């Protein structure tokens, strides 16, 4: 793969690894409320296994490297997150066979969303990771195709949309996954899968900003960037919230 693609992929893996380990207990705590309390540990184990392969990944073409990330997650994560994250990444990786640009990033995102939706059988509003992924991908698509934004700005808008999607899962009952067994007891808790998806997207944005920033010398953090997003169309969204606060509102 090209030197910049390699660098960006390895940087993204490092950031996501650190973030998922930082959030491991929080994700497990979320999952203990409405699931089987393994989401944080499973993802941490999976991303550690990916990180251990970084030297091999650096030698591969981008699509092959991303596919290897997917197969590694499938093998190491288990649970529902293994096939959902890993299987969707494996399937979408073929969109990156010509390297990374706005067009292939969008094709990857759309293929990821399609596979995720097909595999899990979930629709928006079912209180799953689809609630973060769908608005993020649609927003990214619009920002690229209609609004002609640079990819990094489009990704910032997508992350903002995912954040609102996660907030949207809080007051819902679940129709898919383990939480669907809980009925009304799932109401008031944010979905762990949607939440981890947001964390991953935030780190992808941080990576994209760091690499684009080498040219433009901007120093926007993920939070700064999304604060400019348009959040007027969704009730209850508060992009600046620390994750703990939104949960408390639902737990009362």
């Amino acid at each position: 793969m090209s030197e910049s693609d390699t660098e960006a992929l390895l940087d993204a893996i490092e950031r996501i690894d650190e973030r998922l380990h930082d959030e491991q207990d929080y994700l497990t705590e979320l999952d203990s409320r409405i699931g089987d309390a393994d989401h944080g540990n499973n993802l941490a184990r999976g991303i550690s296994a990916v990180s251990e392969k970084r030297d091999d990944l650096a030698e591969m073409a981008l699509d092959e490297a991303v596919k290897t990330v997917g197969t590694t997650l499938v093998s190491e994560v288990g649970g529902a997150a293994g096939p959902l994250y890993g299987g969707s990444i494996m399937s979408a990786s073929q969109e990156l066979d010509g390297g990374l640009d706005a067009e292939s990033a969008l094709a990857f995102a759309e293929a990821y969303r399609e596979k995720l939706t097909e595999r899990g059988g979930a629709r928006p509003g079912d209180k799953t990771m689809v609630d973060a992924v769908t608005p993020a991908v649609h927003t990214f698509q619009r920002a690229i195709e209609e609004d002609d934004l640079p990819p990094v700005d489009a990704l910032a808008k997508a992350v903002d949309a995912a954040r609102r999607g996660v907030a949207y899962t809080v007051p819902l009952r679940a129709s898919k996954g383990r939480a669907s067994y809980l009925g009304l007891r799932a109401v008031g808790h944010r979905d762990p899968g949607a939440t981890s998806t947001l964390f991953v997207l935030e780190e992808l944005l941080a990576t994209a900003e760091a690499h684009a920033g080498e040219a433009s010398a901007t120093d926007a953090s993920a939070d700064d960037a999304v604060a400019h997003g348009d959040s007027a169309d969704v009730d209850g969204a508060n992009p600046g919230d620390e994750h703990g606060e939104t949960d408390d509102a639902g737990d009362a």
Partner: protein
Amino acid sequence: MVGLLVVSHSGKAAAGIVEIAAEMASDVSLVAVGGDPDGGIGTDADAIAAGLDEADDGEGVVVLVDLGSATMNAELAVEMAETDAVLADAPVLEGTVNAAVHAAGSKATLDSTRDAAEEARGMSKL
């Protein structure tokens, strides 16, 4: 003969279901897979793919699953494996017993064995 693969979040549950079914169809290739990659409660696509190979006798494998992620990991394993395999939309214990009894018959095919498993959906206990 068509083989059967039982996938549960618990290796013990899968083994127990196979034990019950084997009592009624001892000749049928019955394989149990359960647990996550760490040996905890969960399911693992790689282990399921290995189980498909083990269960296959040349005429394909019907896969029976328990909760949500078992279905997803089994679907992924079927996509990854070379084995001709189908998932049954059936209660895991009753479906396995039904399918095992059916698979032991001389005319059983992959599709008819899956159908036999799925007939267990309508079984009433009271």
